[in-house]
């Protein structure tokens, strides 16, 4: 009897901070936002309930085009981060020696010590027309006129990959770390070559890490604000910018809130679709890695 009480009490105590966090900082604000998103402004200080804000989104091609653009660029960033991150993670987990492993991991972490804003300004200094890369190319005689690397979509994607790649590497390293080297050896002993071993043994084993890394990276990218704004050019709209504009410059909290929910729904849908396509579930991936 007493034992059970203690168990229950410790469960409540351990769970309380998390429950408070979720309810106060996630659930309540979202309920408030959802309420705002359902209000239609009919006249100053008068509101009605309805789906007008959501209908507006679908009626205006600019909005959903931007959302689709944001989504597809985020997917591209996720794929690039995976392609670049996998070899790095594999090297850290399997090839590097015990001592250099810590140092390598730390080196991957270093960019995170600097804020998003400073990192974006760093890219600006490097890439601008009168920036370091352009002037070194000229100095080396490779080009004769200054080149503008900034203000285009390729720069945005590169900046985003740089920012989020760490979130791909960490789960990959921890999954690959748990893999027994003898499995790879066995693969080779049974006559497999490099690509076969990679395809049939390593990737299936690393799948939980790959999926959870992809989910985190995709969510972070689709919700990022500073990097696309600062590095992007004349045509590069990002959906978070639209949300900011609705809230701040147009005083239109109602449609800003609706946009926020649409972004949430869209990213959740993409993640769900990705899981279905790859035949994974949240239980078999995120919960395990």
């Amino acid at each position: 009897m007493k034992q059970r009480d203690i168990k229950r009490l410790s469960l409540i105590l351990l769970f309380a901070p998390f429950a408070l966090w979720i309810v106060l900082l996630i659930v309540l604000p979202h309920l408030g936002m959802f309420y705002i998103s359902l209000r239609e402004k009919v006249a100053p200080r008068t509101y009605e309930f309805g789906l007008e804000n959501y209908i507006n989104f679908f009626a205006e091609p600019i909005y959903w085009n931007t959302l689709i653009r944001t989504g597809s660029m985020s997917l591209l960033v996720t794929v690039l981060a995976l392609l670049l991150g996998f070899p790095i993670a594999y090297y850290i987990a399997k090839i590097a020696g015990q001592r250099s492993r810590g140092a390598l991991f730390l080196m991957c972490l270093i960019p995170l010590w600097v804020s998003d804003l400073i990192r974006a300004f760093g890219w600006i200094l490097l890439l601008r027309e009168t920036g370091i890369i352009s002037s070194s190319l000229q100095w080396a005689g490779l080009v004769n006129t200054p080149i503008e690397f900034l203000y285009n979509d390729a720069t945005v994607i590169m900046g985003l990959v740089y920012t989020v790649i760490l979130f791909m590497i960490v789960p990959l390293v921890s999954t690959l770390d748990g893999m027994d080297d003898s499995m790879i050896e066995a693969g080779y002993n049974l006559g497999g070559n490099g690509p076969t071993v990679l395809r049939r043994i390593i990737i299936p084993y690393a799948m939980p890490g790959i999926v959870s890394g992809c989910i985190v990276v995709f969510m972070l990218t689709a919700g990022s604000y500073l990097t696309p704004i600062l590095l992007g050019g004349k045509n590069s709209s990002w959906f978070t910018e639209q949300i900011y504009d609705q809230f701040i410059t147009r005083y239109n909290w109602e449609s800003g809130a609706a946009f926020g929910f649409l972004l949430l729904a869209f990213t959740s849908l993409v993640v769900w679709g990705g899981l279905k396509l790859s035949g994974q579930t949240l239980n078999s991936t995120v919960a395990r890695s």
Partner: protein
Amino acid sequence: MIMKLAIAGLLATTVMAAVPAQAETLRLLTWGSYAPEELVKKFEAKYPDITVEVTFSNNEEMIAKLRATGGAGFDLAQPSHDRIFAVQQEYNIYKPLDLSKIDTSGMEAKLLDGVKANTTIDGEVYAVPHQWGTSGLMANKTMAPDVKAWGDLCDPQYKGKTSMRLRRTILLGMAFDMGEDPFAAYADLDKYQEILDKVADKLIACKDNLKAYWKGGDDLSAMMMSGEIVASETWDSTAYKLYAENKDIVFVPPKTGALAWIDTFAMPRKGEADDAAYKWINFVLEPENVKIMSASTGSMAAVKGAKDLLPDDKKAAVNAAFTDEDISNLQFFANIPAGVEDMEGKTLEKIKAATGSE
């Protein structure tokens, strides 16, 4: 610096909450350079029982902050004169001023009357002027000597070497440039939409000519100083700062008139330290304090003889930019009626999303 202020503010509020202190706190919500440290110290020395907390912001964020709390959390705000009338009607975030507590005798009569006319609701005045300045063009004289009008930013001879901020200022400037009067059209929103559509077409065609849209004074300055662009839409204060470093970069009032804004003093509806706020208003309008303020903001105060109270380098920059004729040609931003922000916002989105003529 902002961090320090924020921490100081945080500490101050915690202390305030813990002990019902004697001292009063004046919570200012204002623009980046509108509360120079020197002036805050001087004010606190003159009124030892008042502590000043400063939050830096801009027009839109000021209104968003006040709207979130229904006008609580700050005792004095400084929105521009065109951001009071409709905002007050819609969100009720300001309270009327008691003009008897403000020394208006030193204020430039034209600006004072203008602001009063713009911000009177039901016979009550909601704002008085503080700093004013203009939006117009900036050009490097040696490389773009012919930039005289808003439309010159789209001149193909400067292809890839001009910039603008994708905000309402450029919409209005272009409308004037095309021979329209957008402010007059505020009364007839269908007409205004027509003008906006025309302006959008022009700015979409112009996109190809621009290097990038600038987002703040810093990236604009960097592009201009490095010579990556030769002409741009700008705030006058940014142009004056660059003039101090490079005499070739001057502010150019467009021939249809520079667009003039007036930043005001307005009181949030649930502000608690009204007396301290009135003291601050009167304090910063004293001539010797105007000097310190103008050195920090780079703009002119709304007091008589404001130009003479500017620091020498700024005065030179103003003289290089404005003739008396330009001053009389100024177009003051008109009150933004409800609904216009939405129309302008949609137009700006349309321009941003268009892929230019490529």
